[in-house]
């Protein structure tokens, strides 16, 4: 499935999609930890294109497929992003626009690091714009909800990837 299509897919398919994503995530880790890196690179690229929120190809290039470095970056994401989602949810409920802006702003660089579709980066940027204009609209609530769903999905995928990396490199 094309990544652009992923962004607009029906939310009812969310669970099935996540399950597929987790399966692909397991395969990626297996491929990363394979000894032959040239084979690993080509096969992993194919696997990464499948139905996942994340595309770890960039991270693999950046870390030269070093599992320890990958695990370090993934762990930072898992520690950093869920609290930001919590802050976004609370600041939206409290109409705390500055905090909402900051949380959405702080999230932006993580999208490209984890190869998440630019659609979601644009969502975060739209949330920043709404927060700046201090408008509590239904659309803003929907944007936060969409981002939250995406982050939940990414969290599951990355947790699985991190666990597999840990098991492969104790």
């Amino acid at each position, binding site marked *: 499935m094309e990544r652009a299509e992923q962004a607009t897919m029906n939310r009812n398919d969310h669970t099935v999609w996540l399950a597929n994503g987790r399966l692909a995530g397991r395969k990626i880790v297996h491929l990363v930890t394979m000894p032959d890196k040239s084979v690993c690179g080509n096969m992993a690229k194919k696997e990464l294109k499948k139905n996942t929120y994340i595309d770890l190809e*960039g991270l693999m290039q*950046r*870390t*030269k497929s070093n599992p320890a*470095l990958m695990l*370090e*970056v993934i762990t*930072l*994401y898992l*520690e*950093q*992003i869920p609290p930001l989602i919590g802050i976004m949810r609370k600041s939206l409920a409290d109409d705390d626009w*500055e905090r909402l802006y*900051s949380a959405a*702003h*702080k999230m*932006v*660089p*993580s999208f*490209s*690091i984890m190869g998440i579709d630019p659609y979601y980066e644009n969502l975060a940027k739209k949330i920043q714009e709404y927060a700046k204009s201090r408008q509590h609209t239904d659309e803003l609530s929907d944007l936060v909800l969409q981002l939250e769903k995406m982050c939940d999905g990414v969290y599951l995928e990355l947790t699985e990837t991190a666990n597999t990396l840990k098991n492969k490199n104790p």
Partner: protein
Amino acid sequence: MKNDQSLKPKAPIKLFLVDDDPLFLKALEIEFLQHGDFTIETFPTGESCMEKISDTPDVVILDFHLDGVDKNAMNGLATLDEIKKHNPEIPVVMLSSQDKIEVAVECMHHKAFDYVVKSETAFLRLQKIITSIFRFKKMEKQLNWYMDRI
């Protein structure tokens, strides 16, 4: 004067990376360490960077929005001003998630060497800018050498 064509200094380039986003900081640190001869110190705040500024880094890469989480923290521009007050010769490259002309102009007014938007290509841009900094420094040195002899 010895005409050394190499743009790289003999010692590793001493970089200070300042950002309160640990994920981006780590990603950037990995990129630099994988692609060149750098010694890197990372700082989560402008204040912690200023404590070590007397170590005289070759380049500082500084986040614009340093007071996003902690509202009492020194922001990027204030940190930039402090660095320039301490030593105007230290080149500072500003980083921001905001791709906005007014942010870029503001950074330039505060004597930043350049401004880079946090994106997939940020590292490549930073690499090019660091090369430019050393090319510029070398030309400045050569110019001074010739000026002294006129």
